[in-house]
């Protein structure tokens, strides 16, 4: 098999996955514009974090496997890394939004489970 010709069905699959990832990414950033407050806005980027990155990773795995006639799974590392790191970022950002919303007194914020009566002891080397 020469290096430049791939089977047609491989090209069709790779092209479909790439187009799907493009559509999902556009939907993610369009949702980032459309949603009204921050907690709704946290949802659309998950389309890019999960959908688009999985599509591109599968396209890359299929393309490189078809070219080299062996399974090339190293791109899978991207999915593993993203699935570990994205929830951490989401939790940190939502906690920050909750904390800042309560501090500003923004309406609609859920009350704290353990309300602090006194400010926390603040002796940590400031």
């Amino acid at each position: 098999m020469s290096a430049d010709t791939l089977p047609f069905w491989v090209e069709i699959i790779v092209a479909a996955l790439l187009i799907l990832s493009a559509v999902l990414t556009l939907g993610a950033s369009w949702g980032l514009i459309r949603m009204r407050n921050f907690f709704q806005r946290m949802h659309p980027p998950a389309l890019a974090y999960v959908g688009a990155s999985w599509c591109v990773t599968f396209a890359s795995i299929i393309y490189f496997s078809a070219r080299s006639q062996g399974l090339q799974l190293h791109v899978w590392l991207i999915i593993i890394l993203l699935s570990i790191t994205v929830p951490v970022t989401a939790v940190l950002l939502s906690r920050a939004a909750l904390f800042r919303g309560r501090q500003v007194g923004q309406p609609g914020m859920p009350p704290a489970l353990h309300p602090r009566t006194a400010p926390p002891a603040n002796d940590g080397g400031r």
Partner: protein
Amino acid sequence: MSPLLSGVITFTLGAYGVAILIALWRMLRGPTAQDRVLALDLIYIIGMLIALVVGIRYTSDVYFAAALLIALFGFVSSAAMGKFLLRGEVIE
């Protein structure tokens, strides 16, 4: 590179560029600081996708390492900024 795959890759990269511009509008406009951090995180992920697609285009493994590094630095910067918004300092 067949004309079908080449055209599809050009379209995909164009769509990623438009998505980055839309997210950049949210980052520059965003009413609160966490909106800007979220938009910057999305831009990082789209940049990683661009590196992967360019790696398919030129059939090279170097872009994969670049994509891995972009994802890693995106996580570190977003986590640091989220931590800063939560506490006012990054390392306590």
